[in-house]
C-alpha cells in the first residue's frame, strides 16, 4: 500500500465561518489523519503568500480568536478521532497569557500546538503549560539551516511530535528531496519524536519520497489554493462555494494520500 499519512493544514476563518468548516469536512472525508488549524495572525512572517492572504482575508472580515476556538471545538466534536493541532504566532499565545491559552486549547480537544516564533529554549513557558495540562503537547519546528548541535538538542527533547520544515524558506514553493533533506529528516527523528514533514509538498509522488522518513506529511498551501480557487469561482453563491470547497479538497486529499486514480 502506498498510502500517505496526511496532516492537512487549514486557516480558521478562511474564506469565512461556513467555508472553513466545509474545508475541514472535505479534508477529513478525503482521508486526512491530522488537522492543523492555523489561527490567523495579522503579521504571519513565516508563511508564504497563499496562507498569508488567507489569514489577512479572515481578519479583514473581523474573524476573532474566540471564533477560531469555537471552530476548533466544533471540529473536535465532529471528529473526535482526528488529532487536532493548532498553529499560530507568539503574539496570539502570549497576549492572553501562555498558561490560559494552552488551557483553553486543551479544553477544546487540541492535542498539539505549533508556534514557530517561540523557540524551544525561549518558549515563554509553552512546554511547561502543556505538560501541566497533560493532553496537549508543544511541537517544535525544525529547519534544515539549523546548526547540527541545535537540531540534535531539539530532537533530544523527545517531544511526541516534531515539525520539520523541509525547505530552507517559507511555505508555498515546491520541494525536491535530496540527500541533505533526507539527512535532516533523520536528525529530526533521532530523539524518537514523530516527525511531521511539511512545506511545499503538492503531489503523491513527492509525498512518497519522504513517506518512510516522516510520521505524517503536512500539506498546507496547496489546499489553501484549492479553497481560494473555489472562492473566486462561486463568490456569489456561498452554498455552491462550500460544496466546491468540500468536494475539491476531498479529491485533492484522496489523490495525495493514494495517488492518481
Amino acid at each position, binding site marked *: 500500500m502506498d498510502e500517505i499519512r496526511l496532516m492537512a493544514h487549514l486557516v480558521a476563518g478562511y474564506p469565512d465561518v461556513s467555508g472553513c468548516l466545509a474545508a475541514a469536512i472535505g479534508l477529513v472525508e478525503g482521508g486526512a489523519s491530522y488537522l492543523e488549524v492555523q489561527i490567523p495572525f495579522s*503579521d504571519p512572517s513565516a508563511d508564504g503568500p497563499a496562507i498569508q492572504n488567507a489569514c489577512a482575508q479572515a481578519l479583514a472580515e473581523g474573524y476573532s480568536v474566540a471564533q477560531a476556538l469555537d471552530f476548533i471545538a466544533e471540529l473536535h466534536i465532529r471528529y473526535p478521532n482526528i488529532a487536532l493541532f493548532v498553529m499560530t504566532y507568539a503574539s496570539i499565545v*502570549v*497576549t492572553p497569557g501562555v498558561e490560559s491559552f494552552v488551557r483553553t486549547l486543551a479544553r477544546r480537544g487540541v492535542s498539539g500546538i505549533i508556534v514557530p*516564533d517561540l523557540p524551544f529554549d525561549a518558549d515563554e513557558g509553552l512546554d511547561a503549560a502543556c505538560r501541566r495540562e497533560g493532553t496537549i503537547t508543544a511541537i517544535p519546528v525544525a529547519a534544515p539551516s539549523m*546548526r547540527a548541535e541545535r537540531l540534535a538538542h531539539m530532537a533530544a527533547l523527545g517531544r511526541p511530535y516534531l515539525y520539520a520544515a523541509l525547505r530552507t524558506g517559507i511555505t508555498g514553493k515546491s520541494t525536491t528531496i535530496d540527500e541533505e533533506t533526507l539527512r535532516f529528516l533523520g536528525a529530526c527523528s533521532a530523539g524518537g519524536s514523530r516527525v511531521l514533514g511539511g512545506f511545499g509538498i503538492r503531489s503523491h509522488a513527492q509525498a512518497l519520497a519522504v513517506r518512510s522518513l516522516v510520521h505524517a506529511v503536512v500539506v498546507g498551501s496547496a489546499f489553501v489554493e484549492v479553497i481560494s480557487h473555489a472562492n473566486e469561482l462561486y463568490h456569489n453563491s456561498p452554498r455552491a462555494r462550500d460544496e466546491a470547497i468540500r468536494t475539491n479538497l476531498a479529491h485533492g486529499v484522496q489523490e495525495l494520500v493514494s495517488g492518481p486514480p
Partner: protein
Amino acid sequence: MSDKGYFGPYGGRYVPEVLRRAVEEIEAAFEEAQQDSSFQKELMRLQKEFIGRPTPLLYAENSSRFLKGADIYIKMEGLAHTGAHKINNAMGQALLAKRMGKTRVIAETGAGQHGLATAAACAKLGLDCTIYMGAVDVDRQQPNVATMELFGAHVVPVHTGSRTLKDAINEAFRDWAASFVDTFYIIGSALGPSPYPDMVRTFQSVIGFEVRAQLAERQLTPDALVACVGGGSNAIGFFAPYLDTEIPRLIGVEAGGRGPAPGDHAARMTGDGARTGIVHGYKSRFLLTEDGQVAPTHSISAGLDYPGIGPQLAALGRSGRIEFRRAGDQEALEALQFFARHEGVVFALESAHAGAAAIALARSLPRGKVVVVNMSGRGDKDLFITAPYFRPTEWAAFLRRELEALQNKEALRRQAPAGPEVHYG
C-alpha cells in the same frame, strides 16, 4: 549593552529556527568587526566623506530668547547625507554585510528614509539592493521611491496586510528565510531579534558621542536631551553616552497623532494603549488588540507610526531612566513652523515631535539650562505633506500645472521618434 539579548524583561530572539543561524552569523560578525580597527577606520572614513559627519550642533539662540527659558541646542542630524540619521546605521550594517561576503542587501522602509539610506550605502559599496515598502507607502512617498531607484535599488511594493511598514518587515523576513546564504537584512531601527537592537544603537551612538564632544568644546553639560521615538534608533543613539548616568534627563517623544483613541496615535509608552507582546522577533511594548493582533496606528509622520518600540527603550522607560511624552500631529506642525521661522531650519515631521516637546520643556526651565533636541531628519522629504497643509490652494494649482506639463511632454514624445539613448560603461 544587552544581557544575552535581553534588556530587563524585553528583547530576545523570537525567530523561527530557519532564521536563527542567519542572525547568529550577524552577531558573530558584528562582534568581530567591533574589535577590528580596519573596519572601524573604514566606517569612520565613510562617515566623514560620504555621510558628512560630524553634523553640526546649532545653538537655537532666537528660539531660546523668544521662549525665555532654557537654552535650546539642535543636533543637525538631518544634514547627514540622504537627509536623516538612518544613514549611520545603514552604512554600518552595509559595511558589515560586505565584510561577511554577502552580495545582496534587503531592507524594509516606511516613509522611505531607511530605504533611501540603505540604497545609497549599497550603491556606494557595490551591493545589490532590494527595498520592501508597503504599497500604501509607495503611493504616498513617490519622491523617495524615485531616488531609491536612481541609486539602483529594486523597490518592491508589499500588497499584504495593512500594506505599510510592518508588512514590509514581514516581507523582508520572508525573503531572508530563503536567501540568507548570500543576503544581509539591514533592519532600520533599534528593534528586531538580538543582536539588532545592540548593533543599531552602536552604529547610531555616533550622534550622542558627537553631541557630548560638541557641548564639551563649549564648556557645556546638558540638562536634558529630547528625541522622537519611532522604533527608537535616533533616540537610543543620541542617548547612548548617558544611559548609565543620572543626568541629563532623557526624554523620548512618541506620536500622539489625532488623539488618544485606539488607531489614532502610535503611543506605546504613554497612556494605556500598549501591551507587552512578541512581534517581529522581539519582546517589547506593542499596540495590539485584545486578541494579540497588531493594531492600526496613525501619525502625520510616516516614521513614527510603527506599532512597537525598541526593547532597550521600553526597558529604560520602565526603569524610569527615560521619560516618555507624546506630541500630536498639530503640535508637530507648529513646532516645524516655529523652528523654520526662528532658526531657518526645517525639521522632518518625525523630529518636529521632539521639537514640540523641547519647546515646552525649555519654557518650563530657567535660563542657563541646556536642552538638546535631536533633529533626526530635515524636512525636505515632507514637502508633499506640509505644503498641502500650509498652502493648500497654491499647492493644488502647482500640481495641476505640473501634471499638465508632464502630459503634454508625453504626448509630444509619442509623436516624435525617441533620440539616441546614452549609455555609460
